[in-house]
């Protein structure tokens, strides 16, 4: 394995470079996945039949908490990568740990939100609108859940092996994934919640 020291650790081998490029291509596919969900959402948005409409069930407080928490976690994972490039694994693990805690907070609030929807009678089967709403939010939530487990795995690996081309590369791809989830949430926040409550 040839290591190029002029590059940051996560880019230092040819394989690492390819991994990062491959991950970007995966994120491109993820953008299209969410695009199809948004398409269906916009089509079914007003078809709520006898069920509740978005304006009736959306609550601004949990949504706002989720948004601020996820934005902050996107910032802290950015700081983790910055610490990684400074070769400060301890600081990096702190930032990664904070990111994971914020991710868990986000998920708890989202679960609270889903319970709320269930109680006001908005389930997957209620109407076309609630069906696609929960599918879209659920897909994002499932990504965050997966990201939490992946993040824990990264945390343990960096703690055990320290920073080397391999762990740095994995951490970098993980940070891309986490930022990407934040971007998708911004679109959900804007075009599902705020549009629905406008």
């Amino acid at each position: 394995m040839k290591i190029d020291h002029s590059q940051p650790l996560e880019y230092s081998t040819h394989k690492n470079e390819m991994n990062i490029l491959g991950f970007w291509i995966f994120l491109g596919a993820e953008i299209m996945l969410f695009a199809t969900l948004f398409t269906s959402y916009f089509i079914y948005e007003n078809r709520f039949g006898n069920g509740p409409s978005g304006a009736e069930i959306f609550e601004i407080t949990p949504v706002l908490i989720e948004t601020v928490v996820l934005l902050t976690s996107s910032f802290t994972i950015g700081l983790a990568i910055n610490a990684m490039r400074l070769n400060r694994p301890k600081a990096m693990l702190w930032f990664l740990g904070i990111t994971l805690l914020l991710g868990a907070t986000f998920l708890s609030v989202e679960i609270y939100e889903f319970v709320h929807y269930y109680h006001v009678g908005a389930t997957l089967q209620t109407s076309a609108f609630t069906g696609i709403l929960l599918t879209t939010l659920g897909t994002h939530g499932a990504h965050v859940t997966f990201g939490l487990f992946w993040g824990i795995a990264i945390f343990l690996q960096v703690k055990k092996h320290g920073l080397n081309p391999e762990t740095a590369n994995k951490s970098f791809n993980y940070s891309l994934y986490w930022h990407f989830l934040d971007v998708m949430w911004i679109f959900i926040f804007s075009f599902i919640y705020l549009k629905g409550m406008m």
Partner: protein
Amino acid sequence: MKELFPIKQVNGFIFSLLLTVVALSVYFMDMSFTAGMTILLVTAFVQAIVQFVLFMHAGESDDKRTIYTTLYYSALIALVTIFGSLLAMVWDM
């Protein structure tokens, strides 16, 4: 300690919070649907660009042209899928 909080990223974070506040104005203020949607479209896409360029280091490596091509291509497919379907099924054109 200072090098752990690079000014570029701190500014980006503050800017993204500001964008959220601007987007929130459509909820707290009375405005037309068109005005509200315009604000949301601008804030959401600016927010996305801040994340991709600033936090995801999209333009920093040697393969940045490939990365940007992938991003533009998938964004194009996404927009065509969304607006094409809206044209055909919601706006009745």
